[in-house]
């Protein structure tokens, strides 16, 4: 019996999509639902989970207020630092660098991002640790400066870890920029600075938005950098989660925090997309 062409077509589509769909259901949707169920449960006396329906875990969230505060201050701050350091680099790569060197220079920015964050963060433990920079400062007469386990150390680690992710989207938006606009602006008598503020910067805004949103969102779930460079003194939501699940074994409370973290990520993402849309909108109006 021959199947009709349309039925056959959708059967093939379903067959192609099935493995991915099962994977998404089994290891994304189901786990998230399980986490939701756990978050309204209670901690069993010996640790783990006991079925219940209560919101006491969510009401208890202020007990981890420091972790939320640290994350919500240091993640955006870290993203801003990445932007301040990264923008000039992206600008140089896209506008100033010689075209024949460009590919190599861009590769050199991207490559560290794909090497182990753990190892790269470890490098800074090494540098900021007592035998590193503080030791050198001690030799030139500045004793007892502690660098590791401070918010500053965490911020350095953040910039180090996430700078490539900020530079790339800005570079891409600047590279697409029509050079004739810059020439036109100069021909019309604009100074370099006003060309930058009036032309380059607005046109690179989509890249700036993408980079800032990406870095902020990834930082919201960060664990390694505050763990290694903050040493338990500057901890993020991720650190609180590890502690709750693997040390105090309070799974329901941990689940409630994880659910809240996802909500925070979604809210940040929604705000970023709304702002990005607005930029896209104004640009369209400008061009027409």
């Amino acid at each position, binding site marked *: 019996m021959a199947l009709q062409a349309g039925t056959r077509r959708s059967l093939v589509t379903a067959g192609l999509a099935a493995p991915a769909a099962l994977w998404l259901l089994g290891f*994304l949707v189901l786990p998230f639902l399980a986490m939701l169920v756990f978050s309204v449960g209670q901690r069993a006396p010996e640790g783990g989970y006991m079925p219940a329906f209560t919101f006491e875990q969510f009401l208890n969230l202020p007990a981890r207020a420091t972790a939320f505060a640290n994350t919500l201050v240091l993640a955006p701050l870290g993203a801003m630092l990445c932007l301040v350091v990264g923008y000039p680099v992206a600008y140089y790569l896209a506008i100033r660098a010689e075209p024949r060197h460009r590919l190599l220079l861009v590769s050199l920015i991207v490559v560290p991002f794909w090497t182990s964050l753990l190892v790269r963060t470890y*490098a800074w433990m090494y540098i900021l640790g007592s035998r590193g920079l503080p030791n050198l400062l001690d030799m030139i007469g500045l004793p007892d400066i502690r660098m590791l386990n401070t918010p500053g150390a965490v911020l350095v680690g953040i910039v180090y870890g996430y700078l490539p992710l900020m530079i790339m989207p800005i570079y891409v938006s600047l590279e697409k920029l029509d050079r004739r606009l810059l020439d036109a602006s100069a021909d019309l008598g604009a100074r370099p600075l006003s060309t930058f503020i009036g032309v380059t910067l607005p046109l690179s805004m989509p890249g700036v938005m993408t980079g800032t949103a990406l870095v902020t969102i990834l930082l919201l779930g960060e664990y*390694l950098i505050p763990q290694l460079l903050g040493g338990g003194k500057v901890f993020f939501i991720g650190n609180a989660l590890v502690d709750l699940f693997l040390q105090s074994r309070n799974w329901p409370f941990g689940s409630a925090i994880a659910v809240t973290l996802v909500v925070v990520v979604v809210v940040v993402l929604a705000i970023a997309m709304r702002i990005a849309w607005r930029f896209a909108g104004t640009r369209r109006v400008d061009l027409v």
Partner: protein
Amino acid sequence: MRALVFAVYLFLYAPIALVVLFSFNAGRSASEFTGFSLAWYGKAFSNTFLIQALVNSLFIATVSAALAAVVGTLAALAIERMGPRMRTIFDALLAAAIVVPGVVIGIATLVALAAVFSVINPAVASIWPGDRPPQFRLGYASIIAAHGLFSMAVVTMIVRARIAGLGRDIVEASNDLYATPLGTFRQIVLPQIMPSILAGFLLAFTFSFDDFIVAFFVAGSNTTLPMYVFASIRRGVTPEINAVAASVLVASLILIFAARFLMREKKARDAGGAE
């Protein structure tokens, strides 16, 4: 401007270089270079725990990346054929797999598997004829599945971007010349999307090989290389860790350059076709 950019490159590479340099240090000191030696590499790689962790990581990364490459490619092909509603749902789930923080993926997988095992294990035991019923527990499979989730989504995105740039005319020509759909796929589509599948595989491998936080939750009693490195760091900074760290760096550098090379090949070929 130049000086500033140079400073940023220095900032990016000096710390890595420092770790590599001190992995060759003869002495124990972390701040004073006392002579060249490979002793720490010898010490690190004669450690059976480290070797076991390395083998685990290689195995997990290979399997999860291979699965992700195949499943992600199939998904990318399927999305092309879907109606708008299904496509939106699929897109949203794939985006979620990428955006949800690793720490949450790890926790959610742990929680869900614990719940599933607590139901399945007694059930299997009650109907098992022998004395020792099989126990489902966290292990290789759970790490592979959790890593593969993110990787599959990434592969799907990369391959989709490639499919979007693919000329439809050549596919139609192949169909007009009476090639079977499978024949067209094998001879026309697959060769063109192969570089992006390979690049996706390598990125997936790198991700899995470097991931710490997801494995930390779902590894059960197994240890991956990043977990081993993390545990060693917590015990104290030693030149031995530098040797391991330097090796990890070199391994991922090789992989990432291979991935970028493949993507460049693809771009070069695109440019050639446009001329």
